[in-house]
C-alpha cells in the first residue's frame, strides 16, 4: 500500500531552527552562521571581528568542530561567551546542536552571535540553524574554482567573503573567474575581498554587518 507523504525531509531540523530563531530575536541577538572549507579562515575572521567589536558590543560565539577545544580557546581571548560543540563524526551543525549551545549562553546579555560551522563547503548549507544570515567564506589559497564547484553555498549565502587576499600574489587565483562564477550563480550576493590577518577589507565587512544588523531591527547600533 502506498501512502502519500510529501513533506520536507528536514522538517524536524527546520522546526527546531525556527524555535532557535525566535529565541534569538526575542533576546535581540543578531546571529550569523559562518560557513567555509577547513582552513579558509573562519576562526581568524571571527577573531578579527571580535577584536574590533568588543567590548563595545557584547559578542558570543558557538564553535563547531569534530573535535578539540582549540577554536573556543582562541575565541575566549575576546569574549567569555563561547561554547564549543564537538560533533564527533558530524560534518555540519544542526539546529539541535545550536539549541543545546544556546542553553549555555546568557542570550539577553548578547548583541551579536557568531556560529562557526564545521569546516565544509557542502553539508552546512542545507541545515537551517536559526541564524539571521548565512556567510560563505572562500580563500585565495583554495583556488578560484571553488565557487563554481559549490553552487549551493554561493546561492544560499547572504554575503560571500574572499579571505587571504594577502596571499593573492603568491597563489594562482584569477579573481575574474571567481567573480564571474558567483555573478552567474547568484548575481545579487555581495562579495568582499579581505584578509583577516592583515585587516585589509575588514571595514567593508564590518559595515555590511552593521547595515544588516540595523535592517533586522536589532537593539543597538554597532560602534565600529
Amino acid at each position, binding site marked *: 500500500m502506498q*501512502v502519500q507523504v510529501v513533506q520536507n525531509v528536514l522538517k524536524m531540523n527546520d522546526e527546531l531552527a525556527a524555535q532557535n530563531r525566535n529565541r534569538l530575536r526575542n533576546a535581540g541577538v543578531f546571529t550569523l552562521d559562518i560557513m567555509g572549507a577547513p582552513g579558509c579562515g573562519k576562526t581568524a575572521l571571527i577573531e578579527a571581528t571580535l577584536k574590533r567589536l568588543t567590548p563595545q558590543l557584547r559578542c558570543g560565539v558557538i564553535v563547531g568542530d569534530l573535535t578539540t577545544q582549540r577554536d573556543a580557546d582562541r575565541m575566549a581571548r575576546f569574549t567569555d561567551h563561547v561554547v564549543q560543540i564537538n560533533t564527533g563524526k558530524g560534518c555540519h551543525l544542526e539546529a539541535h546542536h545550536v539549541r543545546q549551545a544556546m542553553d549555555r549562553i546568557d542570550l539577553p546579555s548578547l548583541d551579536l552571535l557568531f556560529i562557526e560551522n564545521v569546516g565544509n563547503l557542502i553539508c552546512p548549507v542545507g541545515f537551517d540553524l536559526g541564524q539571521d544570515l548565512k556567510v560563505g567564506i572562500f580563500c585565495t589559497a583554495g583556488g578560484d574554482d571553488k565557487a563554481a564547484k559549490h*553552487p549551493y553555498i554561493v546561492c544560499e549565502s547572504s554575503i560571500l567573503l574572499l579571505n587571504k587576499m594577502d596571499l593573492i600574489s603568491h597563489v594562482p587565483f584569477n579573481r575574474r573567474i571567481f567573480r564571474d562564477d558567483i555573478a*552567474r*550563480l547568484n548575481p545579487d550576493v555581495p562579495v568582499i575581498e579581505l584578509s583577516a590577518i592583515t585587516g585589509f577589507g575588514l571595514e567593508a565587512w564590518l559595515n555590511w554587518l552593521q547595515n544588516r544588523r540595523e535592517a533586522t531591527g536589532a537593539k543597538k547600533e554597532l560602534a565600529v
Partner: protein
Amino acid sequence: MHELSIAEAILDLARRSVPRGATLRSVRIVAGPMRAIDPDCMQIAWQGLGQANIALNLSILPWQMQCAACGLQWEQTDLPQQCPCGSTHVRPLGGDELQLLSIEVDDPEPKRCSSCKCKLSKTS
C-alpha cells in the same frame, strides 16, 4: 557525508508516516541538485542505518536554468555554464528541494481470534 544525516531524517519522518500496525517497505525521496546528494553515498548511509529491508528510492532532479539574456528556461543534469543563445548569464532556479514523497507499507496483519486463529472481520 551529509547523506547520513539526511538518511536519518528520512527514516525518522518515514516511520512517523507509517499507519498503525503497518510495516515500512520503501521510501520515495526527491532531491534537488543543490543538495549535492551522491546516490551511492546515500545508499551506503541508508544501509548504515540497518534498514536493508526498506528500499530507498531516490530521484535527483535536474538543474532548472534560466538565461538572463534571452529568458530561456531549460533543464540539464549537469550545471551548465552557458545558454544555447551563447550568453553566460545563466542561473539556477530552486534546486534545494528535499522531500519525502511517499512510502510503501505492508498492510497490517489482520487480527486472528485466540482460539481457532481464524481471521476476524473488521467489525468483530
